[in-house]
């Protein structure tokens, strides 16, 4: 069953978030009011979107450090298009954002697939290149709120059934990619490639090509998030979302995605992102300086990776009959 495959790790993390919310609620019941929780979710949506893409990349034993730079570059490009041609409809902007993000992801993917360059080197390089390109395009200037058109800014905030479009985008992505990861050949190929690349080759899966698709998906989601981010915060400049790639990796690790590949789920990435989102939003409420956030998420990463490693510890070969029955 799919359930048995996603294991109880997600349940554990879900419980941790629930306990966290419960503790906060004892002193600040306002925090767990549905409207506030919806705000927290909306605020976490960009992280969720990127974590989904990153989770797929990590699943294939790669890493994408360029997501935040991709987001910033795409965001700047659509913001500048909006300034230059305010009449371009949001639908076209969305297509451009996803298209450009996809293209940037494909560049990463091609370098990994065709030239076999270690993903960490590729994305470290493209990350600095993308940021540099933003500077070249914008000449270091900001695109400010008053320069953007009203429709451009309104899209992520538009409400539908009580939730903003930004939240709905994250929800939709979670649903779509849950189906992709559990019910399609490509989705299962991501698991196979990261779990055992050698065996994947024997079962007719092209390892490099599968990794290429992972980077492409990660890029597409980063591009989409680029537009949503820039329009929601109504500002674009070189350094937006600087360092955000590490939050994204952190969300995955907390969500139980194994950096060694082959282990992880969309649900885990979602919960990992929500965990960080709840902490970030709760700190000001419980009167802790927001400066604590970095240290807390750092500790969360270390604890999560230690807990997951314990659960996945190699048991060795099972030779004794008694051991097989016990398993």
């Amino acid at each position, binding site marked *: 069953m799919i359930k048995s495959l996603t294991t109880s790790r997600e349940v554990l993390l879900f419980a941790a978030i629930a306990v966290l919310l419960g503790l906060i609620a004892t002193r600040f019941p306002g925090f767990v009011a549905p409207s506030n929780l919806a705000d927290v979710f909306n605020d976490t949506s960009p992280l969720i979107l990127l974590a989904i893409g990153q989770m797929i990349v990590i699943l294939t034993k790669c890493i994408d450090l360029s997501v935040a730079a991709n987001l910033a570059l795409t965001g700047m490009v659509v913001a500048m298009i909006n300034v230059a041609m305010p009449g371009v409809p949001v639908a076209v902007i969305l297509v451009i954002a996803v298209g450009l993000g996809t293209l940037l992801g494909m560049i990463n993917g091609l370098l990994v697939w065709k*030239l076999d360059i270690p993903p960490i080197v590729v994305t470290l390089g493209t990350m600095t290149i993308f940021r540099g390109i933003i500077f070249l395009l914008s000449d270091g200037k900001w695109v400010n709120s008053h320069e953007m058109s009203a429709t451009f800014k309104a899209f992520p905030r538009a409400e539908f059934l009580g939730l903003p479009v930004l939240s709905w985008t994250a929800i939709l992505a979670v649903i779509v990619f849950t189906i992709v990861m559990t019910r399609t050949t490509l989705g299962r190929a991501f698991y196979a490639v990261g779990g055992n690349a050698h065996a994947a080759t024997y079962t007719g899966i092209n390892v490099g090509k599968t990794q290429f698709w992972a980077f492409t998906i990660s890029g597409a989601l980063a591009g989409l998030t680029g537009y949503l981010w820039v329009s929601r915060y109504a500002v674009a400049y070189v350094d937006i979302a600087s360092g955000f790639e590490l939050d994204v990796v952190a969300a995955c690790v907390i969500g139980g995605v194994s950096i060694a590949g082959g282990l992880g789920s969309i649900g885990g990435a979602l919960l990992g992102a929500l965990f960080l989102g709840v902490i970030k939003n709760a700190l000001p409420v419980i009167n802790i300086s927001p400066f604590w956030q*970095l240290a807390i998420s750092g500790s969360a990463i270390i604890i999560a990776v230690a807990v997951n490693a314990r659960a996945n510890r190699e048991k060795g070969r099972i030779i004794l009959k008694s051991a097989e029955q016990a398993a």
Partner: protein
Amino acid sequence: MTTPANAIPDRLQTPWESRLKSWEALLLLVAIAIFIANSFASPYFLNAWNLSDATFNFTEKAMIAFAMALLIISGEIDLSVAAIIALASTAMGAAVQAGAGTPVLILVGLGTGLLCGAFNGVLVTRMGLPSIVVTIGTMSLFRGISYIVLGDQAYRGYPSDFAFFGQGYVWWVISFEFVLFAIIAVIYFVILHKTNFGRSVYAIGNNPTGALFSGIRVNRVKFILFLLTGLMAGIAAICLTSRLGSTRPSIAFGWELEVVTMVVLGGVNILGGSGTIPGVVIAAFVIGLVTFGLGLLNVPGIVMSIVVGALLIGVIALPRLWSQWRQR
């Protein structure tokens, strides 16, 4: 069955022959080319004081890069180095507030670096966690502690004799930092290329299982490497804090990636197993010269990052493209 000597020669190539064909030789040519191009591009380039100033662009990062090179050759990585600088600098700032003098500040800086390195080392070698994740975590944790302590404030008021480490000159245009960089380079050259320890670093990086099965204490070696990396970050923190004269929690932000770039550009295989200290030294000069040259031409720093990013991918991609093209 002791047969008569079947005469296997020790080597087929002399060490110098293989050195000439190496990555380091190619990189040295690049460095010389950049140097010549720079001296044509700007009249201010060939000025001893300007050149001396330019070394500050890379000396602190290169100190860390030497230890990082050993760590990467052994198959691990430490992304928390910049955060260790922040924490060590914060600790020194706090010590100043408590009235500590320069000798104590040095001990605090080095001690913080060693402690952070030990923390990473324990998590990786004792608990068997992947270093890339662990150090992404400690990167947030160490810098996070700096933010908790400092918030949006800064520590200032370092003693005047403390300024020597980042601003002092030993002789004419030769800065203290540059001398320190050279000494550390020699020490790491000896450690990696001339000792048993260095040999085991290569063995572990090439095949950790094989090294373990050959009786090498793999975890002990790796732990020492994390300690050394922490120590180097501590030394860099002393130099940088002394040079800036202040500590903010955002100090040295993003340096971890610049250090890794320097190491990879120096020909160290990011997957472990190969690389040399001379390569890293030349890479440090290449990055320093490019930064300095573009700066003289008034090119902003961020555009510089495009060049460095392209260099990073290009130096690995081009040889592979070349060999793929030749196979056709």
